[in-house]
């Protein structure tokens, strides 16, 4: 049994490596700037919630979280709604140009966001969507939709087409079949896809920052203002950072039971 002990030790060390920087952020978020700058302490000696209070009492701070949540949610919904039927089509049917289309879609996942900065800025400005949530949500579709189509295609191909045929025989119309029977069958795939869509939209900053200025500004962009004339406000910066981790934690919590099998993306 020494093997399993060694494994347990190894994974513990790795998880400590994962948690240490996060702990440090958490630690700093409960400290005063005085304590942070005067000496290095392993836990807050003068525990304070002042940094969090700063964020929660200032609308220009917390609206950043709300903005981010809004465009991420819109993005996840759009991604799932358009990707599901497309993934179904790719998995079940042959049609003119299917392979080319699929590859072209995937190639967009490989496009560096930096390439699209300027054209996006001009495009959304010209149609009056600059500094709106929908602009960021649409921009993030660039990489999320191809990924979602690809992940879902894997899961859908894992469902035997006999189910589809059975439903037709039972007299279901296509939309009814799709919503009532098919979607529940691939729900763990949908869960994993939503997880990925959330993840890549929530963590992206380059496009989100470029396409917004005030009204839809993401939290990541607002965080830069902790840099002031008198230096960086480390305490508030840390508290803001900690708060960005929480939505992610909630999402992981919801999909935790699908992760073990779902993360193989239906392709094992």
């Amino acid at each position, binding site marked *: 049994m020494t093997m399993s002990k060694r*494994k*347990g030790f190894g*994974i513990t060390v*790795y998880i400590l490596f*994962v948690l*240490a*920087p996060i702990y*440090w*952020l958490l630690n*700093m978020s409960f400290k005063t700037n005085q304590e942070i700058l005067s000496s*290095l302490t392993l836990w807050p000696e003068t525990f304070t919630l002042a940094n969090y209070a700063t964020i929660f009492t200032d609308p220009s701070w917390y609206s950043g979280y709300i903005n981010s949540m809004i465009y991420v949610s819109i993005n996840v919904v*759009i991604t799932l709604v*358009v*990707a599901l039927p*497309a993934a*179904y*089509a790719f998995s079940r*049917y042959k*049609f*003119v140009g299917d392979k080319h*289309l699929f590859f072209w*879609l995937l190639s967009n*996942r*490989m*496009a*560096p966001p*930096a*390439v*699209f*900065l*300027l054209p996006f800025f001009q*495009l959304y400005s010209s149609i009056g969507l600059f500094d709106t949530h929908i602009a960021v949500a649409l921009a993030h*579709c*660039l990489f999320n*939709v191809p990924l979602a189509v690809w992940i879902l295609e894997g899961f859908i191909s894992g469902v035997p087409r006999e189910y589809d045929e059975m439903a037709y025989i039972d007299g279901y119309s296509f939309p009814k079949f799709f919503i009532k029977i098919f979607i529940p069958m691939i729900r763990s795939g949908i869960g994993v896809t939503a997880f990925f869509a959330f*993840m890549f939209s929530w*963590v*992206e*900053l380059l496009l989100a920052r470029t396409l917004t200025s005030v009204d839809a500004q993401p*939290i*990541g962009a607002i*965080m830069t203002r902790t840099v002031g004339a008198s230096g960086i406000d*480390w305490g508030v910066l840390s508290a803001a*950072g900690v708060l960005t*981790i929480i*939505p*992610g*934690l909630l999402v*992981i*919590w919801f999909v935790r*039971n699908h*992760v*073990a*099998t*779902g*993360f*193989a*993306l239906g*392709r*094992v």
Partner: protein
Amino acid sequence: MNKVTNNKAWWLVLPVFILVAFSALIPLMTVVNYSVQDIFGPNNAYFVGTDWFREVLRDDRLQDSLIRQFVFSGAVLLIQIPLGIGVALMMPTSGKKASLCLILLAIPLLIPWNVVGTIWQIFGRGDIGLFGWGLNELGMDYNYTASTADAWATVLLMDVWHWTPLVALLCYSGLRAIPEAFYQAAEIDRASKWAVFRYIQLPRLKSVLVIAVLLRFMDSFMIYTEPFVLTGGGPGSSTTFLSQTLTTMAIGQFDIGRAAAFSLIYFLIVLLVSWLFFTAITHLDKQK
């Protein structure tokens, strides 16, 4: 699975097509358009053909950051893929402990990229960061803002911290898909731990590893936010990767024609290398 030919399926794909065409095709056309013109202002542009491309390809700054980018992505793959497999192999296979491990491992994946940069910016500092302070206490002269080697090590460590969990989670679910019977048969066949890994686990991880390698290559090749926050590309331009060079060129210097040509070359490189990886891995399998 035998697919049925049905061109009506286009209706199902149409929303995706329109959406992606809108958010990819139009901007891409814009980029192509810029890349062949020299623009001085509205209604004041000249067609310059492939001049920008030729200039970009000769640009030392770009060549440097391209080399840096390849070194970085190569290092990322060489470290993260084996480490991710190792972490997946060490994880508990079931029960509460497994769930806990999964959740903890996934945390770095869901932290906004600028915050990842911030976390390491703080963690690595010699005065207020545990990591930097610890290294200095151990007598090492560590300072990621001043030393190129330290900056590189920190950026790499940050990326390992940030993305190895993705590889680990992919491999973990790949491992869970291996039926118990294979392990039993291997035990009966007196296979060593290494033989089990080499002949059972690794071959069955292949499809998830393809995904992991591609995702890690693409995302590391497009990395921008994390090193930008951590080092700002410095010291000097030692950690300035392609996306940052491009962004500086396009937005900082508003050198649009050159940036557009550069963008297209950049995109093509990602496509080409991804395609190379993909065919190399799938071909490896077909041989023999």
